[in-house]
């Protein structure tokens, strides 16, 4: 995995005074899923637009290579290597799903026969055969997104940009889309995915970069990112209020919940720290009914890195 599908140094873009991307470095190895994670307005879509040749970066930004081609010098070669499925459906609503597919086949210069074969095969794969003869404007959100991706795949791109592919989809359509993306990766395609859903990045991505205010706030695997952030703890639950009371006295630095009879002890989840807690409980002769170890999830990482630390839990739920 030494070949990079996407490499960018100091990606910069501003509109007037507003800096959208402020020196972003990206390195995506071939055949991997890279996720750019960030809140609305972080610059995710702008990054995709630049890397997919839709808009040009600011002058003076470093070399950008996509699929081994220099973006500035040979945009057309980059275009031949990539496929883009945007946040807003890039389908022609006035014509049918099948006509959309055949349009793509023609633009990829496939023969008539090959074009029809490929269109039929992809419509089948994306479960659109029944709707193939209907105008795309009558499709549901999930169907439009599937048609969009199917159109992108007509040209067999080696690198696919997916800009918020599941935004606005219901849970079933979202899981469908995830399954489709996983299958793409099995075929060796490189996927550049932007999302505002932490779970999505966690599910799909090999590497995640958290983009905030036009800068990469952190980058790594989901596990690496979670380790960056404190917030792990051990939770003890008691049935017996007396045992709860004694444990609370024996352990310091606990977050107590008298109603639920639970104690939270900050911990990084290592064996050493766990043993220390258990030793304390043993020497006081206390036995907890359940013990759970909580490691920080991407939500914790996201809020810590994007300046939303201390946001109450309810707000996180609402974000999903």
């Amino acid at each position, binding site marked *: 995995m030494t070949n990079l599908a996407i490499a960018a140094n100091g990606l910069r873009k501003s509109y007037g005074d507003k800096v959208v991307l402020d020196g972003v470095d990206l390195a995506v190895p071939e055949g991997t899923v890279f996720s750019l994670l960030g809140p609305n307005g972080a610059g995710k879509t702008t990054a995709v637009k630049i890397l*997919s*040749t*839709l*808009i*040009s970066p600011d002058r003076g930004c470093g070399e950008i290579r996509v699929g081994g081609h220099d973006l500035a010098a040979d945009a*057309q*070669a980059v*275009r*031949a290597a*990539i496929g*883009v499925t*945007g946040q*807003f*459906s*890039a*389908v*022609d*609503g*006035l*014509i049918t799903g099948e*006509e959309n597919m055949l*349009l793509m086949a*023609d*633009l*990829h*210069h496939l023969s008539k026969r090959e074009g029809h074969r490929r269109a039929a095969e992809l419509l089948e794969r994306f479960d659109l055969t029944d709707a193939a003869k209907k*105008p795309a404007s009558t499709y549901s959100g999930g169907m439009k997104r599937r048609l969009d991706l199917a*159109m*992108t795949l007509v*040209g067999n791109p080696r690198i696919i940009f997916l800009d918020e592919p599941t935004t606005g989809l219901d849970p079933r359509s979202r899981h469908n889309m995830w399954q489709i993306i996983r299958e793409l990766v099995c075929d060796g395609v490189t996927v550049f995915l932007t999302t505002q859903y932490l779970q999505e990045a966690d599910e799909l991505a090999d590497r995640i970069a958290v983009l905030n205010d036009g800068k990469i706030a952190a980058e790594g695997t989901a596990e690496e990112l979670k380790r960056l952030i404190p917030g792990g703890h051990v939770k003890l639950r008691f049935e017996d209020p007396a045992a709860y009371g004694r444990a609370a006295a024996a352990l310091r630095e606990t977050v107590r919940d008298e109603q639920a009879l639970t104690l939270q002890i900050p911990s990084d989840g290592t064996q050493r720290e766990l043993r220390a807690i258990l030793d304390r409980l043993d020497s006081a002769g206390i036995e907890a009914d359940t013990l759970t170890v909580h490691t920080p999830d991407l939500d914790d990482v996201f809020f810590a890195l994007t300046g939303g630390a201390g946001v109450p839990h309810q707000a996180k739920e609402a974000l999903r």
Partner: protein
Amino acid sequence: MSSLSLAARDSSTMLRRNLLHARRYPSLTLNLLLTPIMLLLLFVYVFGDTMSAGIGGGGADRAEYIAYLVPGLLLMTIGSTVIGTAVSVATDMTEGIIARFRTMAIHRGSVLVGHVVGSVLQSVMSVVLVGAVAVAIGFRSTGAGVLEWFAAFGLLVLFALALTWIAVGMGLVSPNAEAASNNAMPLILLPLLSSAFVPVDAMPGWLQPIAEYQPFTPAIETLRGLLLGSQIGHNGWLAVAWCLGLAVLGYLWSTSTFNRDPK
């Protein structure tokens, strides 16, 4: 594949897409076709007797006024058709599919060429339809041979090409369909200030130079000369110059606008 044949292939694909749109949703084209037909019937059957009194030093009858009117209305038909082009280009640019085209390894200009060729074909079809109505109510060409008919056809196509490129530019700079329709309005208002309905001599003095040298009048006079045998004079060259000038201007304007980074 050479870049020229690539351009031709992609452009013909885009043309097929535009013709498919026009075939599926003909209401816009048909609506725009109504304007020149209504004007034709209005001026002939409602205003005809009064208007004809002012033509040819008075005493002209309705048939003569039809003959006077038709060349201008044929060109106005083109002006009306390309308003539809401006609207459909503006609508198209708001669609995600255009962003997709921009990220594909296709000939970049093919999107616009598809619109232009589609629009010229539609203009020719509309002119034929309006012409058929004109013939049905009594229009006959006088003294036009094969050569004149070819020249007339060539002029109509060239005029359609010129106005289409201008309309494409108007569509590209318009944020939505309504704005495009408003921006393209002069293309159908301009014929009212030309020699289409009344001779330029009959207009107020300050208006005459504008009416005489704006793009429609030379084209109308040339078409009149070709179909009816009237004097063409310098209008022929003027018409061709206007068409070529507008086509080149519209082409440069449209392509530079399209090649700019989208918002």
